[in-house]
């Protein structure tokens, strides 16, 4: 399975995302923001970073870059799309997921290994988890506060579209502890924490067993391989 990772000007975690795809058993394909070409990939990752320097709003200019026309069409046709951190911000700016992300309520950039609860496994990127499973992956953001109006929040909860919720602490003031969402179809997932930084022993979060041994993020990238077989 070929998984494209889009590089925007200011993307930081595109190489990590490509490595995560490879470690999961997929074939990573580098995609460029300025092209109108998805190179026939089967799934797409919008990586973390500070695309266009976060000018205007986080993800706002990237959401209107050339390749996003193709990404939006592909997402609407059912192609799996994962947005991580800045990628999540791009997905909400592209209206592929509802709501918005604003500056952390405490005003500081935060970096921590973050516990999450998996709330929905009905998606291309979360089907390898179990509902209620608790995972730990790194979080690092300055503008990760998820907001939406009450009606939207109620709809997200009612339709089971909250994919991940923060555990222990709410690190950025996100409403209802929302860390990540999926769309109705389940092919689009966005979250602020970084699964691609927890895919390889020696480089992930600490666990009870050993330092830096956490690989909870790998399941995102193995899930999508299964999703393509099923469809």
């Amino acid at each position: 399975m070929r998984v494209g990772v889009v590089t925007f000007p200011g993307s930081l975690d595109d190489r990590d995302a490509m490595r995560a795809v490879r470690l999961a058993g997929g074939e990573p394909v580098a995609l460029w923001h300025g092209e109108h070409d998805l190179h026939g990939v089967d799934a797409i990752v919008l990586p973390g970073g500070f695309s266009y320097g976060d000018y205007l709003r986080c993800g706002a200019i990237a959401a209107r870059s050339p390749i996003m026309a193709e990404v939006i069409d592909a997402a609407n046709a059912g192609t799996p799309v994962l947005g991580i951190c800045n990628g999540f911000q791009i997905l909400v700016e592209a209206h592929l997921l509802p709501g918005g992300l604003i500056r952390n309520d405490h005003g500081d950039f935060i970096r921590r290994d973050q516990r999450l609860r998996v709330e929905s496994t009905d998606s291309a990127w979360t089907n390898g988890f179990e509902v209620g499973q608790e995972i730990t992956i790194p979080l690092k953001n300055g503008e990760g506060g998820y907001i939406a109006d009450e009606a939207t929040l109620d709809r997200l909860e009612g339709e089971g579209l909250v994919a991940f919720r923060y555990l222990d602490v709410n690190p950025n003031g996100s409403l209802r502890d929302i860390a990540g969402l999926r769309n109705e179809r389940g092919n689009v997932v966005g979250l602020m924490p970084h699964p691609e930084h927890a895919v390889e022993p020696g480089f992930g979060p600490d666990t009870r067993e050993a330092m830096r041994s956490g690989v909870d993020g790998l399941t995102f990238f193995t899930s999508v391989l299964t999703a393509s077989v099923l469809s």
Partner: protein
Amino acid sequence: MPTIVVEVMPKAELLDPAGKAVAGALHRLGHDRISDVRIGKRFELHVDGEVDAELLAAVEKVATDMLANTVIEDVVAVEVRGETAGASA
């Protein structure tokens, strides 16, 4: 050359952490009568030629489609300013 000014503010009901930080600094400097600060954006769009209704309508659309994210912000003003505004005073 006329200019179209677009002003965008964070929605009133949302927390504005940047404004809150500025308000905190002002209070530390002794400005006790300033109760709150909210930080918005001002766009100055320079126009070749005259501003007509068609262009103004296009700018009003792009203001809500791109310059502001209406989930978290409101467009509070779209105004035309002439190049010589203030110069003749």
